[in-house]
């Protein structure tokens, strides 16, 4: 009997390894080891290239806390994330709502709204750079006041440009998730609600939104994550300019590590960023999970 139990335990372990083993190994190899190695490097003065380095205690942390550019870029990233998350989700939801009403030709619209997501970030940045500095400038010359100057030439408008492009890219993808949520709202609930007089905005607020909270959770999480990790569009659209005023935090960390060749400090800032993003994401998931209801 006892023998049998042991066998079963071993069997379970083997089964686990069979199914989860490869994934665990890949995760360990490419994420866990790199992560631990990264933490170790925050205590060194490595410049990214030399063979030897010294352990220097917590002085990288002190440097990171003193690095004004890092904190400025972090604050900027918070603003950016707030703008992107709110605007993207609102627009994505509205488009999704509109395109599940059964209008003619909605398939075409769904496809067109989703397309920007299929373009990679760097290409997207280059395309939009062209739009901002060639197309919009031409409109400005024809008297459209807000395009008088190239948007990429001053800090505030360049920041707006980043938000616009991020929203344009992300909204189509979130639209898809919202659409899946809206379509799966049970018909009978909708009918009952309509009978009870929940029409228009009331219907959206009290029936649709509560029932698609799982979609909201996913969409907010994904947009927060992508806003905090934004790098590719930042690089190809503004490259942090003018005068480092649009450097988002990921770019600052990269530049600190590889351009200023202070790998230890850069790694430390990356770790700080990780802790902040992790804290925000967990809080957000807990909060929105609480809102989810069963139909």
């Amino acid at each position, binding site marked *: 009997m006892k023998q049998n139990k042991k066998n079963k335990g071993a069997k379970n372990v083997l089964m686990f390894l069979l199914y989860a083993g490869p994934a665990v190994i890949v995760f360990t190899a490419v994420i866990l080891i790199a992560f631990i190695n990264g933490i170790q490097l925050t205590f060194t003065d490595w410049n990214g290239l030399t063979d030897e380095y010294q352990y220097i205690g917590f002085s990288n942390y002190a440097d990171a806390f003193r690095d004004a550019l890092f904190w400025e870029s972090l604050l900027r990233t918070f603003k950016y994330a707030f703008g992107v998350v709110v605007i993207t989700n609102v627009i994505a939801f509205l488009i999704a709502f509109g395109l599940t009403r059964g209008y003619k030709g909605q398939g075409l619209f769904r496809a067109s709204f989703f397309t920007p997501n299929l373009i990679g970030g760097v290409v997207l940045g280059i395309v939009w750079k062209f739009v901002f500095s060639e197309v919009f400038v031409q409109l400005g010359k024809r008297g459209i006041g807000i395009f008088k100057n190239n948007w990429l030439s001053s800090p505030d408008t360049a920041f707006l440009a980043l938000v616009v492009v991020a929203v344009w890219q992300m909204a189509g993808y979130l639209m898809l998730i919202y659409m899946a949520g809206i379509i799966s709202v049970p018909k009978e609930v909708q009918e009952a609600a309509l009978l009870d007089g929940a029409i228009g905005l009331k219907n959206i607020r009290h029936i649709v939104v509560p029932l698609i909270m799982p979609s909201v959770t996913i969409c907010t999480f994904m947009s927060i994550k992508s806003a905090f990790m934004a790098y590719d569009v930042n690089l*190809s659209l503004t490259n942090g300019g*003018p005068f480092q005023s649009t450097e988002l935090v990921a770019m600052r960390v990269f530049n600190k590590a590889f351009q200023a060749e202070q790998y230890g400090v850069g790694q430390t800032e990356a770790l700080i960023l990780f802790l902040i993003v992790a804290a925000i994401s967990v809080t957000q998931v807990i909060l929105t999970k609480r809102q989810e209801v069963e139909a």
Partner: protein
Amino acid sequence: MRRKWIGMMMAAALTLGLTACGSSPANDGTGDNPDSTGAANTDADTVTADGKVKITAYLGGEMPDENQKLIEAFNAQSDTTEVEMLTLTKGSSGYQMLTVMYNAGNPPTVYFLESGDVMKLTDKLANLSDLDCMNYAAAGTTEDVTVDGTVYGVPANLQAYGLIYSRQVLSDVMGEDFDPSSIKTREDLEEVFKQIEAQGIAPVAISPFDWNLGNHWFCQIYTGQAADAAGRDAFIGELKAGTADLAGNTVFQDYMDTFDLLMKYNYYKDNPLETAADGNEKQAQLLATGQAAFWFHGNWAAHNIRTLDEEGEYGFIPVPVSESNPNAGKICTLVPGYFTVEQSTTTEEQQQAGKEFIDWIISSQEGQQYVINCGNVPAYSNNTATITESISQSVVDYTTTGNNFPMYVMYPSDHYTNVGASMQRYLSGEIDRETMAAEIEAYWATQQ
């Protein structure tokens, strides 16, 4: 039962495959152990199927098509070596790419680096002092990459910058026989600017890029501190120690006075940072189409100008400064990069092949033509290729008469973003000169 075993075998095979992949870079013996590198020469990576030595090369990022042609020409004539070209993603510097490649254990055999980066990597680079082409290198081109008599880099070419003028515009406004070299002082320049402006043409265009303002404009100020290298290093030492007074520095004030003059007559004076996110094509277009008369830029822009105007005459005048300034009357020259040979991970044969490749680039007809095709000026006296382009010819006119000063290049690699940002703020009118000086002093004080 059997099915389960198959499954497990597959899982095991996957795992083994992974660990095998994971360990292979370590076997290449990266940097840690240079002594063992010779042993790896049986590796399939270093020899081609027909017995040639295989090496990889990164020749700089500006003209990938020309690089490709050059490497193909070399491969066609070499019986012993085959070179594979590496390219670079736009926006990242060679040094950043190299950091990644070193950490992955496969840096290129031959690579192009700026002098400051060469000096950081001397423990990984081969001694190139004995290369035949070194006998022909122009004076002053190898000092920046020499340590105790060992030369670690072969200068690729020469570049120069100053105020590029358009002969066409000057002739139209000032008359056919106007001689641009008669502009010696700020006052002379302003006089010409005024006459050009009166014709409705923008006197000058300032490219608002951080590298252009932060490195090219500002490094003139470092060179101007003294006529010799020791004096310049001493000034940089003071900046790092935080004791230099930039705002009270006459050379700084001198160059910024000239900059103010350029700002006053700038094509973009309504919105100076208009093209900050673009390349230099727009200013090249202004010059080539006669919308601007002068442009603070370098001879590498010849390539952009020539795509629009093949025939027109353009040339340099020095940036006008006070006569007491050691840079007065001279244009600024620099070696944009050096070819180096990696020796900490490559085999003896590969290093030899790399040296042979570099020697060929400098000495062969194709290699000499390559320098010209890229819009640069040869750094070697044995280069016999003819220059037909007037901007490059103008550089040669200054360098052969000794009317050039070297750009100060021993700046930190994030110098251009930081100092460039301060210069951009100044250009856009957001800060004044004192604030800018204070910002730049603060930046230098954080450097070791």
